[in-house]
């Protein structure tokens, strides 16, 4: 028997996955704009982010209607709530990609400095985590979600390394201070992307296992 709530849940899921695809694409574009010093690619990111914002508003409205008209309970309720939680994280990823693109634009307008290899590794780590979290959501896979959570420490370490070497560069070569600052900004934005990926993974665990593992290390859960 098809329940009245099933097509509603399916619609929410599809819209969220569409938003996830856009977020991954926009992040990839922003990272590539940094690596390639591509100003045009950087400008495209700002336009692309509008679509993510539109999907965010669409999901807001759809979640409200789902709660009001279907009064979901149990797993259905967790699924609806998780969609809103994850959409918020994806919207932030879009904003972070836009910020990365702004740094890419500035870098392209200044004399070139080599993009640190660790920054590229950090970018790929953050992208892998985001992709892994969305795969975990798509597959209702808590193990895959936990695998994403396990990658966060490495991202933090990579960010620290970029910041450390960036500060050294700025101190030793003040003429490239602007570029150094932007490299540090990009690293911090990528670390935030990874944080949002962990939030998404935590949302998957909430839906599939009815467990809230947010702040687990601090709360001793």
């Amino acid at each position, binding site marked *: *028997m*098809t*329940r*009245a709530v099933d097509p*509603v849940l399916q*619609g929410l899921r599809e819209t969220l996955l569409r938003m996830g695809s856009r977020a991954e694409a926009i992040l990839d574009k922003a990272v590539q704009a940094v690596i390639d010093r591509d100003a045009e690619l950087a400008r495209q990111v700002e336009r692309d982010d509008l679509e993510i914002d539109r999907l965010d508003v*669409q999901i807001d*409205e*759809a979640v*409200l*209607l*789902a709660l*009001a*008209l*279907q*009064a979901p309970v149990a797993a259905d309720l967790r699924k609806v709530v998780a969609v809103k939680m994850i959409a918020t994280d994806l919207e932030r990823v879009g904003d972070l990609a836009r910020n990365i693109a702004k740094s890419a634009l500035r870098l392209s307008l200044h004399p070139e400095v080599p993009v640190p290899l660790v920054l590229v590794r950090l970018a790929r780590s953050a992208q892998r985590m985001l992709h892994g979290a969305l795969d975990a959501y798509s597959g209702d896979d808590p193990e895959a979600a936990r695998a994403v959570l396990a990658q966060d420490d490495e991202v933090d370490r990579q960010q620290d390394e970029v910041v450390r070497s960036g500060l050294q560069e700025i101190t030793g070569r003040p003429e490239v201070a602007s570029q150094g600052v932007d490299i540090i900004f990009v690293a911090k934005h990528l670390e935030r992307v990874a944080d949002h990926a962990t939030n998404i993974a935590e949302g998957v665990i909430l839906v599939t296992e009815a467990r809230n593992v947010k702040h687990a290390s601090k709360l001793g859960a």
Partner: protein
Amino acid sequence: MTMPARSPEPVERPERGGLERSAPAPGAKMSARGVSVTYDTTLAVREVDLDILLGEVTALIGPSGCGKSTLLRCFNRMNDDIPGCRVTGEIRLDSDPIYGSGLDVVQLRARVGMVFQKPNPFPKSLYDNVAYGPRIHGLATRRAKLDEIVERSLVRAGLWEEVKDRLQEPGTALSGGQQQRLCIARAIAVDPEVILMDEPCSALDPIATAKVEELIHGLRGSYAIAIVTHNMQQAARVSQRTAFFHLGELVEYGSTAEIFTNPRVQRTSDYITGRYG
């Protein structure tokens, strides 16, 4: 799914949230204008304007005694059978008034079917329960045609697979939920245009309720359906339009999505959020 835009409804009276009298909405299968109902000297329904649209389910909600069932019974003139009950105003089926026009009430009740709160199968076989209406309305005289109507109606009511091998068993032998679906099959066997449901699930368990709601969803495309329910979640799940009644008055009428996410009238908001009722 996007938030519904505000319906371009007729002008609202802010103090009551009611509607200015207007022409029936496009797609209205039945329309009530200025309908009032009194029982002897008691005014039960006051000056109601309401449309029942083809292809949609319209839910009538409100606290006990608000007049929603009284109004529902006006649409197929069931109130005619209540001593001391007087109906004023106008109700049309398509463009034809159903009161005071010499209309055949029996024919009206074939076109405007009704399902009641308590399942009421006839003390006949399953087959004869469904075949009774087509027989007396002359829709079929040959056995083959009756068989076809009975099967089609039971299929549409989602009951065929469960009863096809025991059509000669009494209708009363079914479970409560099955009996209600049998009553729905009986109603649709005479090919109605409108189906009125007066709290059709209040006597059923949650699984039976879900099956009837699924059935309503499946029937919606072919009929104009009006359902009285005291279960607001049910109204939210099954209907596209909702009419909120209080003390005999239509307080607010609009798309179900609007009513349940952002009602315009405070009384509506108070009722659906459980502040009274």
